[in-house]
C-alpha cells in the first residue's frame, strides 16, 4: 500500500521536487561562486555574508518543498470529492498516515541534493582558516525544517479541508491587523508573544530560526 501511495505522491509532486532537487544541487555553488566574485573573497565577513545569503536560499527551498508536498495530495483528492480514499478498505486515519509518510519520505530527495550540492559548493570554494564547512549539518537542518513545515501544511490542509487557503489567508490578515492595532494602542503585544513561542526554541518553527551556514565559524 505504502509503495503505491508513495508512487502517486511522486507522480503529483515530481515537477516541483525535481525543481527543488536541481535547485538544491546547483544554487549553493552558484551563490558561492558569484558571491565570491562580487564581494571581496578575502574578507571573511563578506564570505560569511555570501554564505548567509545561500542559507536564506536553503530556508526558502525548505518552505517551498514542504508546500509542494503538503498541498498537492489533498487538492487532487478534494477534486474527486475524496470518493477514492473513502471507498478503499482502509480506515481514514490509516490512509492519512500513509499519505503523510509518503510526503515525508519524498523530502529525502531534495535533502540528499542539498547535501551533495553543499559538498560540491564547499569543496570548490576557498575556506578561510578560521571557518569550516558544514554541508551535512545544513542538510540535516533542511530535512528537519522541511518535515516540520510539511507536517504543519499537511495538517492545515487536512483539518481545514477545502477552506485551507481561505483559512490561511484570512488568519494571516487577522493576525497582521491585530498586531498592528495592539502595537498602535500600546497594548502588550500578545500576538508577538505567540509568534515568539512558535519561532523560538522549542517552538516548531524555531528550526528555521538558525544559522543555515554551509561555511561557518
Amino acid at each position, binding site marked *: *500500500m505504502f*509503495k*503505491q501511495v508513495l*508512487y*502517486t505522491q511522486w*507522480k*503529483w509532486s515530481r515537477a516541483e521536487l525535481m525543481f527543488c532537487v536541481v535547485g538544491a544541487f546547483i544554487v549553493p555553488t552558484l551563490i558561492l561562486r558569484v558571491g565570491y566574485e562580487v564581494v571581496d573573497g578575502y574578507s571573511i565577513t563578506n564570505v560569511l555574508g555570501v554564505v548567509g545569503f545561500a542559507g536564506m536560499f536553503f530556508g526558502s527551498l525548505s518552505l517551498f518543498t514542504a508546500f509542494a508536498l503538503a498541498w498537492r495530495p489533498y487538492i*487532487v483528492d478534494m477534486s*474527486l*470529492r*475524496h*470518493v*477514492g480514499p*473513502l*471507498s*478503499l*478498505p*482502509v*480506515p481514514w486515519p490509516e490512509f492519512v498516515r500513509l499519505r503523510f509518510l509518503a510526503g515525508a519520505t519524498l523530502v529525502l530527495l531534495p535533502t540528499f541534493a542539498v547535501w551533495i550540492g553543499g559538498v560540491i559548493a564547499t569543496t570548490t570554494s576557498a575556506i578561510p582558516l578560521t571557518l569550516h564547512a558544514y554541508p551535512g549539518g545544513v542538510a540535516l537542518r533542511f530535512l528537519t525544517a522541511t518535515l516540520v513545515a510539511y507536517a504543519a501544511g499537511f495538517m492545515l490542509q487536512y483539518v481545514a479541508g477545502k477552506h485551507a487557503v481561505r483559512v490561511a489567508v484570512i488568519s494571516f490578515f487577522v493576525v497582521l491587523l491585530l498586531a498592528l492595532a495592539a502595537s498602535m494602542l500600546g497594548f502588550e503585544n500578545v500576538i508577538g508573544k505567540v509568534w515568539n513561542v512558535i519561532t523560538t526554541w522549542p517552538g516548531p518553527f524555531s528550526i528555521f530560526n538558525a544559522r543555515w551556514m554551509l561555511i561557518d565559524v
Partner: protein
Amino acid sequence: MSDAIIVRNLSYRAGKEFAIRDLAMTVPSGCVYGFLGPNGSGKTTSLRLMLGMLPADYGTINLLGHDVPAGVHKALAKIGYVPERLHLYPQLTVDETIRYHAAFYPDWDSARAEQLRREFALRAEQTVDRLSKGEAGKLMMLLALAHNPDLLVLDEPTDGLDPVVRRDVLAALLEYVSSRGATVLISSHLIHEQERICDHVGIMDDGRLLAEMPMAAFRGGIKRLRVSKAPVERGALPFTLLSRGVSAGREEEWVVRGWQPAMKEYFVAAESELREVIDLDLEESFVELLRSARTPVGMTGEDN
C-alpha cells in the same frame, strides 16, 4: 438467506433543503436490488451513507455483517463500488490505477483484472484523464469486479454511456453475478434497464424510501382500474389506492397497488362496476407511485 445490507431509521441532513428521512431498507444476499428514484431523490447520498462515506445523523447500517461506520473498512474489502462520477486520479495510467487499487484489496485477482482490461479494450498506458467516458466507466467497473466482491454497489453505472458500452458493462456485471452469486445494489433512474436485471426494487423520492418490494410484485402489483358509478365513500379498501381521477362521463380511473383478482368483490359490494383492469409497465408504475407520494389521493384536482 441473510441480508447483505440492513438499514434502519437512517437520517441525514445536508443543508436546509435536503435530508434523508428515516430510511429503512433491506437488500437480501444474492439479489440484484434496483434502487430507483428521480434525480436528486437521495439515492447517491443514501449509498454514500451506507458505505460510510458520510456520517449519518441517526440510524444503523449493517453491511455484510459489519456495522457502519465502525467496521466499514472490513466490509469495503468485500465490496466493489462504482461511484456516480469518476473518482480515479487523472495523472495515473490505466495500469498504474489498477496496481494502486490492487495494493489495497487482499483478494485482488490480477489475472481477472487483466482479462477484464482486455475484454474492455482498455490500453494499459493510457492516462485516466485521456479516457473517454465509456472507457472510464469500464475501468471503474473493472476495479469494482477485480477483487471478487460479495457485494457490488453501483451508482448510475451506465448513465451517459452509449448503448454498446452499456451492454458491455451490464454483460460483465451479469456474468459476474451469475458466476459468483454476489449481491448487487444498483441505483439508476433508467427504469427499463433495471426491469431487465433486478429482482428487488426500492423507490426513493425526496429523501424517503417510498416502497421496497420484489420486482415481480412491483411489476404486477400496480394496476389501473376503470370504474363506473364509483363509490363516494370509499370505506375500507382491500388495496392501496394510489390515485383516482375522472376519465369520461361518470367513469373514473383508479391506480391501485397490491391488486388481486378477488378484490373485484369490493366494487360489487359498493354497487359500482369495475369495467377494466389494465396492467401498467414498470415506468408507468414508477410514475404513479411517485405521483401518489407527492400528491396524496384526496388532494388531486381530478379527484372531485
